[in-house]
């Protein structure tokens, strides 16, 4: 079965640079979630989209922005990167508005800020 695809899998950036993370949900899934997992920590919710509209927002810095496109893929844009942004970024997808309520996670993008 098709899974959530995230690209790139690994990304190394310098401080103050910009990064773009991409997420391709499971086919027919219309809801996308972004989570950030720091070293030794649990995943923290950043932002979610349902049918291309932002549906919820968590502890996402103002330096970060995200959107969901017409094909339901999503991009997380991160500017003015800081050392503390180094983390594993997960995208998850689900079929919102239906009986299915489970979020399926992608493999994550490991961002390292030097």
């Amino acid at each position, binding site marked *: 079965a098709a899974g959530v695809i995230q690209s790139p899998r690994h990304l190394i950036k310098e401080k103050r640079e910009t990064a773009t993370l991409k997420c391709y949900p499971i086919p027919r899934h219309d*809801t996308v979630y972004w989570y950030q997992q720091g070293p030794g*920590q*649990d995943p923290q*919710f950043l932002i979610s989209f349902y049918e291309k509209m932002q549906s919820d927002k968590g502890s996402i810095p103002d330096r970060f922005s995200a959107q969901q496109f017409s094909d339901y893929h999503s991009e997380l844009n991160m500017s003015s990167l800081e050392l503390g942004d180094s983390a594993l970024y997960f995208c998850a997808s689900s079929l*919102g508005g239906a009986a299915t309520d489970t979020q399926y*996670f992608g493999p*994550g993008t490991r961002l390292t800020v030097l």
Partner: protein
Amino acid sequence: AQTVTQSQPEMSVQEAETVTLSCTYDTSESDYYLFWYKQPPSRQMILVIRQEAYKQQNATENRFSVNFQKAAKSFSLKISDSQLGDAAMYFCAYRSARFGNTDKLIFGTGTRLQVFP
């Protein structure tokens, strides 16, 4: 606000034995979902099992089962016949059903499970 607590930072079990991981949560809602996710060294988040709060019957998936005590707000995971491949970080997670199916997951801090041969 909802919170999820996993009080066991680390657990260990002998291969083929049974182990139970604990999870408690706090919520004022009556309708919600609970999950256990497994995160092996690859860091992939893998769904192990889920429970709907309105269902009294405990969920079971092969060797994995839960003990869901709604009144006590407890949701423990039992792994039977433990295998070396079960070694991972296990996260308990809560999701509200109040806003339909688009709400975020709230995770506990995780329990690292070691399996010894």
